[in-house]
């Protein structure tokens, strides 16, 4: 049996001082697997990804998250990231005045430090980045710019994948990485995901469309609705959703 990456049990979570969004969610992901989550707008998909990565706007009220033997609930966001969790944002933020390359280097070195490893030699790091850039078909100009500042929607998504490749996490949660991408960008992003993917790690993709799944084939597809996984299946479930819509499936 392959190594377990994450085990989410009966997870309940609220918006701090607000409504309950997740209402007893269960999900288990093993190494080497690709999972896709689909679900209606407002069903809690982005909330799930933010809760996993430790966003302070949400609080877990019940349930457990086991991430590689560690209890995720007690970990700060930076610690989760350094332990190998990566979330690509549905809406990546623009941060003026923070240089993209410096940011990547900071993030990379934070992880190295956390793991008790040496910080990257700047030249080696540049080589590492160059390789990832060409895989994503990104110009190196992006490195000189400020973090996502003035990036187009598609460029922001590619930048998320670039970060993912540089940090090489154990589990990635990709929140609508495919939205707003043109055909070429979608291919580049898919190439990035497939290059990342190995037997030792796992992918959780949140998406509304089949088109990404044509390039990155999921082993499991789940439907999230009303804060719970209401249905799980193989890749054919996504096609069903595309054809039938959520109303019929939930019924």
């Amino acid at each position, binding site marked *: 049996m392959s190594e377990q990456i994450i085990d989410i049990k009966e997870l309940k979570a609220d918006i701090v001082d607000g409504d309950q969004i997740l209402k007893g969610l269960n999900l288990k992901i093993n190494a080497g697997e690709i999972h896709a989550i689909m679900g209606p707008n407002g069903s809690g998909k982005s909330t799930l990804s933010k809760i996993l990565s430790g966003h302070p706007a949400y609080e877990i009220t019940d349930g457990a998250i086991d991430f590689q033997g560690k209890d995720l609930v007690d970990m*700060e966001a930076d610690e989760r990231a350094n332990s190998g969790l*990566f979330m690509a944002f549905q809406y990546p933020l623009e941060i003026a*005045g923070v240089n993209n390359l410096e940011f990547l280097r900071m*993030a990379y070195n*934070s992880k190295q430090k*956390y793991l008790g490893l040496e910080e990257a030699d700047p030249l080696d790091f540049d080589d590492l980045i160059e390789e990832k850039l060409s895989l994503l078909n990104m110009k190196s100009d992006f490195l000189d710019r400020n973090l996502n500042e003035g990036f187009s929607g598609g460029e922001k998504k590619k930048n998320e994948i670039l970060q993912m490749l540089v940090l090489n996490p154990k589990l990635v949660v990709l929140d609508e990485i495919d939205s707003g991408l043109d055909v070429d960008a979608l291919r580049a992003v898919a190439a990035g995901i497939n290059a990342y993917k190995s037997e030792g790690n796992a992918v959780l993709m949140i998406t509304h469309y089949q088109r990404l799944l044509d390039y990155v084939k999921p082993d499991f597809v789940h439907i999230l609705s009303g804060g719970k996984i209401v249905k799980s299946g193989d890749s054919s479930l996504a096609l069903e959703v595309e054809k039938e819509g959520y109303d019929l499936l939930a019924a």
Partner: protein
Amino acid sequence: MQLEEKKKKEIEFLEKVFRAGSSTVSSISPIADKQKKAVERISELGFPNRKIEDWKYYDFSPILDNFLSLDTCKITQIEKESLKDFLFPECEKNLLVTVNGHFSEKLSNFSFSKEDISILNFNDAEQLKNYQGVNELVEKYFAEGIEDESNFFKACNTALMSNAFLLKVKEGVQLEETLQILHISNEHCFNQTRSLIHLGKNSKINLIVTYVGLAEIPFVNNAVIETVLEEGSELVLDKIQDDTQKGILLYDLKAKLLKNSRFEYSSLNLKANSSRDKISVDIDEEGAHADINGLYILNGERKAHNVITVNHNVENSTSSQLFKGILSDRARAEFNGAINVARDANGTDAEQMNRHLVLSDEAHVDSRPQLNILADDVKCAHGSTIGDLEEDEIFYLLSRGIKKDDALAMLTLSFCDEVIQKVKVESARQHIKNMALENLDTQMHKANIVHNLR
């Protein structure tokens, strides 16, 4: 009792200024005239108080409390070595140094010809005689506004200035390199620095003016700069105030912009116990543009006051103001920025933005933007924000494994970046960033950040 004490100090202050002012009159007649007028005005006005609109939020007691020994304002021996932290390699060849308000020939050096750019000492009557038009410049532009009660300290400077200089850029001369003007204080004194900067037609110069305190003793730095930009000229003036934590800085800048001239100004207040910047820009002819920026980073009990006035006196001119402040602990900031558009000044395009990042509940900001528009066909925009760091931005950095302290430092620095980028000299930008980080909350892991951020 306390009030009596205060009155006594005010009188002592006035007497000293009066006595010293009467004995330091220049031998050049138009300068002497203005100095006499200043001394007269000082005795008429008396010590200023908070009833004067521009000084509403200002606390005068540190000035009065610190014994102001006018006598010790003299040039002292300083080795260039001790200045190295404040010198920018890009300006190595063009450096003007004053020590406690006195010009230091030994520490200064210039690569340009005296013909192109002249630096004339107001004390040197012989030298001034040889330059045509100096009297006219002084009459027209020197010590403007000293009769106004809000300009009391400018009047003091005019009365007491020991070593003012005139920087004159000849018509058509464009200096590519940047000239650094370094004002050093290392005595417990009431320091007057003064300059009149004249840009001839179509000339261009970049200046970086730094105020530095070398000793951790209280002093008051009373600085005045007046500048005139003739038609088509361009002045970039970056002011870095790098005084010790005990310095009290009064700063008065007046700029006059003539046809199609361009003035880019940035004020960076990084240290000092308290600073007050009074900046007034007069756009007196068409087509001119003024770009006025400021950054202040305050912690502890420190204070910064910015009193900015941009006057659009004629048609078709533009201006923009961007002031940013970061406050922590019990710091206080005042931003008082006015845009005045005269009745005939149609086609004015003016904007003003003032942003504060307030990192502590006990810090306090008074932001007073003022638009006084008398013309009809005008584009004016202004905005002001006071806030904390964005939670989502912090989270974005944390989610990439960056520690919270580092994330806060990065974001705070990124808040400053917009203003820091206006500074033309690369090593000065780096210096400002380092200073900014030093000033930011002590809990931040600055060593790590300084190392990692360019």
